[in-house]
């Protein structure tokens, strides 16, 4: 009971930093990924979102599905064009905060798998991505513009 007690106290005494500045992506219970149809709220560590200028949001249970969506917009949302996209956000692997998907660094072929299998793991900085690659054996480090349909195909 003693150790337990101390654990609890640590929480009680220090204002939890996890709650202080929460910049995560928040999806509702019923939000579904438009690509694979899965409920996304269950996988907060891989959550990604595309926000359109009209305020509508598409959530994804991983960056792989987000890229499938972005690379083939007419198939998933025929009414929208690339110019209608306001922002693209992905979940940083270490901090789990929302980061800009266009400037993020993506690691492919690591030993970390998402709900849809192989994933592109997003990072806010190159240094973080490099360190992740040494820990988790990622083979390639990519930027947003490097990601093409052929590459996504190799991940399925």
């Amino acid at each position, binding site marked *: *009971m003693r150790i337990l*007690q101390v654990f*609890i106290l640590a929480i009680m*005494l*220090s204002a939890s930093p996890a709650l202080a500045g929460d910049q995560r992506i928040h999806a509702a219970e019923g939000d579904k990924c438009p690509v694979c149809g899965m409920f996304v709220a269950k996988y907060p*560590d891989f959550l990604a979102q595309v926000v359109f200028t009209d305020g509508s949001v598409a959530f994804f249970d991983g960056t792989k599905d987000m890229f499938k969506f972005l690379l083939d917009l007419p198939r998933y949302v025929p009414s929208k064009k690339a110019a209608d996209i306001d922002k693209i956000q992905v979940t940083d692997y*270490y*901090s789990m905060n929302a980061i800009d998907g266009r400037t993020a660094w993506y690691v492919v072929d690591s030993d970390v798998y998402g709900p849809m299998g192989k994933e592109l793991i997003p990072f806010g900085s190159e240094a973080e991505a490099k360190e992740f690659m040494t820990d988790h054996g990622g083979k390639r480090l990519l930027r947003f513009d490097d990601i093409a349909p052929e590459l996504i195909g190799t991940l399925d």
Partner: protein
Amino acid sequence: MSLIEKHRNIIDYTLSSLGRRKGKTFAVCLVYSFIIFLLASVVFFTQAIKREADLLLREAPEMTVQRLEAGRQTTVPAAYADGIGRIRGVQSVQKRLWGYYFDSLTGANYTVMVNASLNGREGQAIVGSGVLLRGAAEGESRKIQAGDSLPVKTYRGEALMLKVAGILPFASELETADLIQVSERDYRDIFNAEAGRYTDLALQVRNRKELATIATKIVRQYPDTRPILREDILRTYDAIFDWRGGLSIMTMAGALFAFIILAWDKATGLSAEEKKEIGILKAIGWETGDILQVKFWEGVSVSLTSFSIGIFAAYLHVFVGSSLLFEPVLKGWSVLYPDFRLTPHIDAYQLVSLLFITVLPYTVATIIPSWRSATIDPDSVMRA
């Protein structure tokens, strides 16, 4: 006669037949209720305490890092915290100071912990509701109140008076009842603790997937440390409480077997009188099915009544009476709370499983022998 009317008469007969054998019925009910009471008390207590631990641990830091010296826990230098804080994925590192203080006046063991909000308010303390104060005049211990002065003997042998600035909120009594929170300087004074060293480090890690990697990195960087994951602690506590619950059930096994024998005997061994009764009922035109229904309702009413009494008593025992009977076994070595109550919590699963292991076997046990004697020729039974 309609079906419902017939059924009503059968139940009516059952109850009056139970009433005719008051002594036997009462004895079975009494023992039965007692057994249910014991079993339910253990189940309720174990579940409630596990739930309490679970609720509290959910908010706990994902990882704690201790330093070892010759295999035993020792203090962690502040530099370790900086190094560990630089590992990717570690959101924050909190340096913690805590220890145990034995109060020879009241004979109680308290947990002393640093509360950062008391830094700068030296000489003040926030205490748990279970902390006792030994009054000089009264000569006996009483619960501490805000405004009291708590005498503490430091490890240098000096006396330190701590003014109680507040009592910890009731939220989770099990964990906070014996706690004393002080400022960092008071802590170091009380335990003569070296500056710049801490009891352990509490880490916040956002991504649970990274926990194993971070633990590996910590051990690689500081080989004399031991990272402990929250999941490990949760598992350990679960195992300990299950083990204790099992232990108390084992000690009750004797009582349980005595009950099974009694129930079996009372329920299955039909007396000559009962056999005769069955014979007469058959002779006046009752069918075997009707007699079985009577016996079924007999079993159900005895076991359900006892079950309700037992469960109710167990509830009072665990959640109102602080589990007087097996408190020492279940709570462990750090029992010093004068008053301790668990949050009442019972789930349907526990109730249903208790119902199945007690009521069902009893009911079945009463029916089989009745069925055997109900199928015998009434003539031979009445003559016997």
